[in-house]
């Protein structure tokens, strides 16, 4: 009885929150699909002409492609460098961890504007192409989210105990990282990746200052259009957010390719229990490790 009541309040809270969050999205959408909108609660007409105008603009397409290229390059660098680094520091070098915690918060102390100024002084006209400098700058910018995100998930699965158990069972550091830690922090990694993905995709300050008009990403294109026509700018934004939502869904799907396989194999072994969520109350960590091991082998065979 009591829990049911709580649920109604939960839905009410989420509905209010959702309204506040959707308000600008919805109105931007209406603005993009109307020829003229003022004085009324809802626009008088509906048109796709701004979108058609947008799609016919080759600059828009190439801006989207450029944004994707930049985002994926940087995301690859960030994930490949950061995930093992955070894991190693958290597990094996606790002393470095204190130092790292301070270091990764540095981007907050240095706003993008300042970082870009320093980078321009350092690298403009040097052998290192500005594109790589931009990737590096974005890498630095994503440090706080990445470090905090990965570290939080490592903390929540009690990594140290898991690794100890794995090492007692004879696994080396590499194996235990790939086969035990990575599958366990999937949810946390997914959320962190999503967060960074869309922040890269919509990056403006650093891109504009470091490469500027030479490399027109979608945000820079957006700003240029905004000064020309409000309705058209709205349609750019709508297109941008549709893209962002689609990409987020794709990433969600890609990050869990084993979702279906896992559910099936679980049903046979331990009904209703997901192996990737190790409960704090579970006394024997080694049990879950073995579970994961068995599952992986099964999957490989399939």
């Amino acid at each position, binding site marked *: 009885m009591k829990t049911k009541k709580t*649920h109604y*309040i*939960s*839905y009410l809270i*989420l509905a209010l*929150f959702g309204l506040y*969050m959707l*308000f*600008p*999205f919805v*109105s*931007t959408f209406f*603005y993009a699909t109307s020829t003229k909108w*003022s*004085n009324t609660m809802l626009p008088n007409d509906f048109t796709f002409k701004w979108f058609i105008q947008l799609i016919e603009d080759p600059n828009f397409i190439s801006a989207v492609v450029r944004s994707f290229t930049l985002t994926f390059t940087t995301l690859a660098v960030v994930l490949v*460098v950061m995930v093992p*680094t955070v894991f*190693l520091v958290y597990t094996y*070098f606790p002393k470095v961890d204190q130092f790292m915690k*301070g270091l990764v*918060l*540095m981007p*907050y*102390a*240095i*706003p*993008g*504007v*300042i*970082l870009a*100024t*320093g980078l321009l*002084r*350092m690298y403009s006209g040097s052998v290192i192409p500005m594109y790589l400098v931009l990737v590096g700058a974005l*890498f*630095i910018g994503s440090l*706080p989210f990445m470090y*905090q995100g990965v570290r*939080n998930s490592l903390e*929540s699965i009690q990594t140290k105990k898991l690794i100890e158990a794995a090492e007692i069972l004879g696994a080396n*550091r590499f194996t235990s990282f790939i086969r035990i830690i990575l599958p366990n922090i999937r949810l*946390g990694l997914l*959320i962190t990746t999503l*967060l960074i993905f*869309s922040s890269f995709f*919509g990056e403006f*300050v650093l891109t504009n200052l470091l490469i500027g008009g030479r490399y027109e990403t979608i*945000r820079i294109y*957006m700003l240029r259009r905004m000064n020309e026509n*409000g309705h058209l700018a*709205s349609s750019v*934004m709508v297109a*941008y*957010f549709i893209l962002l*939502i689609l990409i*987020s*869904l794709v990433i*969600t799907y890609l990050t869990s390719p084993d979702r279906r396989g896992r559910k099936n194999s679980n049903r046979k072994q331990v009904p209703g229990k997901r192996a990737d969520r190790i*409960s704090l*109350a579970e006394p024997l960590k080694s049990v879950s490790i073995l579970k994961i091991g068995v599952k992986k082998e099964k999957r490989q065979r399939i």
Partner: protein
Amino acid sequence: MKRKQSRKTILLLVPFFLMTVMFLVIPMALMITSSFTSESTGGFTLDNYIEVLTNSFYSQSFLNSGLISLFSAVAGLVLAIIVSYAMTNLPEKVQDKLTVYINVAANFAGVPLAFAFIILLGNSGVFTLFLKDANLPLINGFKLYSWQGLALTYLYFQIPLGILFIYPSLKKIKREWKEAAFMLGASSGTYWRKVGLPSIMPSIAGTFVIMFANGMGTYETAYALTGSNINLVTIRIAALVSGDIYARPVIGSTLAVLFAVIMMAILALSQMLLKKVRRDLA
């Protein structure tokens, strides 16, 4: 054997430190040295700091940034906790989907966000005109291009950001803890005071610092919304570093160094507090 392995492991940290030195440490070192460089002679000087510290225009920009960040972080955090908690009561599938959309919302900041608020609530915004026509006193006195507008837009991206950090830690709270507490006769309030909140306290403190810093560092949104009308640190620095008419990169660097020092002091303080919280837990 073990030492050899350790040395190899340390080598794996090299890429990270290489990136950090190249793209963070060196640019920052340049920023610091230029803050001690005289604008006219190019020699070492403290004049820049004296100028910045005695000019009330600059100190006011720090105060303004601090106040708006504090407000948006506190209000945003409270709302984020409430919403995250509400989320944990939903079916698992819905929760997964919601995190995707909240992530999108967290990035609805900067130029697009400011633009959306301008077309709605700006001077000639759709709702401003509509409400004026209908003679509704709902948003009488509300000015988008002021503190109120800034606070409203800041909250818009602070809440989702808070959720993204608070929600995973709320998920960690086990149903069993609650059941155990209720079985031992705890009320809902007691449970949250003694078990629920303390267990997520480190997350809350960490998230607050992130949100505060995020507010302090915000440039794009504030600039797109109010131009240079509101005196914020980031806007001041950008104008000094890359402004067309009043470009004074050296003063900009000085402000940036002070900004960095203040932020680091806040971060250090939060680390200390975090440790204290953790000790209480143990």
